């Protein structure tokens, strides 16, 4: 394995002592871009062009091109506009944004400042999930430091530009990672997604034009503008620039976050994470968080970690949350846990999702507890197929994809349970 470059963007300072302090950030080029922006040396249009050149795609899971998203906003539209950061990291297997908040909060703040300036927003909120108390305190303290340094507030550095930055703390709801549910939540309501259109760019927080980006996306912006869009694009592959943080968890020797270049071979990432634990063989990989399709080892070992390559293998890059399963993993039990999660987290608004997630959990549960019926496999395929595309937000699809993919690749394990009342690993 050739030397793999690590931590070139969002995690570039994480190895430094007190990397979350403004002094450390500024000693390493921090807020230089923001000062150029305020001095008028970089116009909003130039920034959007540079971000488009960088080929960065949204890091929260959907992979939407960031430059294009920003261009939907009319910065000269009258009245308040908002920039929101989505730090509601809740997709099972995802823990990358937590380490941005803890170790490099200023780079995220600078990204939010710049994004706000581009879209014409004088206020921003970072939505941090309620369980992230330590990351919240780190971020909140960094915001205070930025105010004290005169980098936030009114008439910043005499530029005439105002920007205020706040944190909103969640209280435990996966669905609030969906952008319109996140907006509802900031408005003090249940986190139930809105029907789109209208999109947030025209009707967002408090009914005002709003842009929402993921933590990793926004934290990448200062580096893209400091080193150039081309620099970032060249780190990655055609169509998807830059580095990407892969959060590797499950059956590996060294679980953790690895910021590598887009397009890094999966097998190299697995080696970085110490390989499969206990000297065991790889069985399956969920490459992008629990909502992306599971892949058998042989397909995963041939793919590279970028959108196109993972799509060719039959899954999706998602949030880059790589869940590793070794050769002893009971796939029925794994799916049972995932179906429970979506059943628990469905907001209950759309009937196919509210009812369908419950059906899927109950059927997988009955298979796992030895009470499965031969027709259950078809029923699972039928129910999952009938949720997809018939609901307001992505949660319904996210709940269906694991069911469909576990059955696609590991149907024999479900059949074994149905026929023998136990796992393929249990002695009959």
């Amino acid at each position, binding site marked *: 394995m050739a030397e793999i470059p690590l931590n070139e963007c969002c995690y570039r300072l994480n190895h430094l002592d007190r990397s979350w302090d403004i002094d450390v950030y500024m000693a390493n080029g921090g807020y230089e871009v923001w000062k150029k922006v305020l001095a008028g040396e970089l116009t909003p249009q130039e920034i959007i062009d540079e971000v488009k050149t960088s080929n960065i795609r949204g890091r929260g899971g959907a992979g939407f091109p960031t430059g294009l998203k920003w261009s939907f906003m009319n910065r000269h539209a009258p009245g*308040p506009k908002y920039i929101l950061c989505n730090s509601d*990291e*809740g*997709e*099972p*297997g*995802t*823990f990358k*944004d*937590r380490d941005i908040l803890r170790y490099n909060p200023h780079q995220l703040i600078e990204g939010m400042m710049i994004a706000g300036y581009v879209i014409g927003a004088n206020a921003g909120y970072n939505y941090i*999930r*309620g*369980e*992230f*108390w*330590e990351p919240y305190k780190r971020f909140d303290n960094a915001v205070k430091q930025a105010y004290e340094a005169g980098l936030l507030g009114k008439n910043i550095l005499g530029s005439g530009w105002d920007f205020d930055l*706040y944190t*909103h*703390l*969640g*209280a*435990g*709801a*996966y669905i609030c990672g969906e952008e319109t549910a996140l907006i509802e*939540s*900031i*408005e*003090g*309501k*249940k*986190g139930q997604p809105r029907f789109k259109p209208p999109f947030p760019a025209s009707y967002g927080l*408090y009914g005002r034009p709003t842009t929402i980006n993921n933590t990793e996306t926004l934290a990448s912006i200062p580096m893209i503008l400091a080193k150039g869009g081309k620099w970032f694009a060249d780190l990655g592959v055609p169509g998807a620039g830059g580095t990407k943080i892969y*959060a*590797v*968890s*499950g*059956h590996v020797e060294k*679980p*953790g*976050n690895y910021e590598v270049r887009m397009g890094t071979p999966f097998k190299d990432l697995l080696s970085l994470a110490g390989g499969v634990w206990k000297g065991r063989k790889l069985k399956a990989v*969920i490459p992008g968080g*629990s909502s992306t399709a599971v892949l058998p080892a042989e397909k995963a070992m041939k793919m590279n970690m970028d959108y196109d390559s993972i799509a060719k293998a039959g899954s999706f890059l998602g949030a880059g*949350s790589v*869940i*590793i*399963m070794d050769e002893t*993993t009971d796939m029925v*039990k*794994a799916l049972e*846990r*995932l179906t429970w*999660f979506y059943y*628990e*987290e469905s*907001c209950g608004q759309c009937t196919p999702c509210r009812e369908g997630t419950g059906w899927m959990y109950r059927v997988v549960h009955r298979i796992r507890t030895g009470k499965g019926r031969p027709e259950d496999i078809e029923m699972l395929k039928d129910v999952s197929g009938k949720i997809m595309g018939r609901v307001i937000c992505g949660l319904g699809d996210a709940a269906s994809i694991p069911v469909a993919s576990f059955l696609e690749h590991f149907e024999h394990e479900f059949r074994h349970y149905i026929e023998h009342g136990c796992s393929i690993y249990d002695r009959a």
Partner: protein
Amino acid sequence: MSEKNYQVIKGDVKARIDRWISQYPADQRQSAVMPALRIVQEVNGGYLTRELMDEVADYLGMAPMAVYEVATFYSMYEHKPVGKHKICMCTNISCMLRDADDLVEYLKEKLGVDVGEVTPDGRFSIKKVECLGACGEAPVAMIGKEYYGNLTRERLDELLDSLE
């Protein structure tokens, strides 16, 4: 509004809630409902009551039902007493793959209570939670505001002994 005789939203509690209110537009007091519920829950020993929710509703100018909706939608709000230390064990996929279920069984056995129950001395309660977003340290638990990772039966023993 501050003239009213609130039971809980006064003094320091009021100041903490007001700080949150101040970060939203003046006509959007409702945006502070989540932090307000978190704060009153905290000062009430970890759970909400009808009276507390009603007080929050009144203070923020919301319909009580709108507050109940929020308070029952988000999983971190509690509606019955919890232990002084609420042990939130993640059992989602990455923690499950590293034996979180065994730790839940161990906790039940060690503390002599089921998930959702409080120990007779009021010190501990167990809750199963969804992904805490710290899967690199799986299995993970949240106790109070802190995360504890790489848990084993032995680490849980040490941890529980260290908590008053």
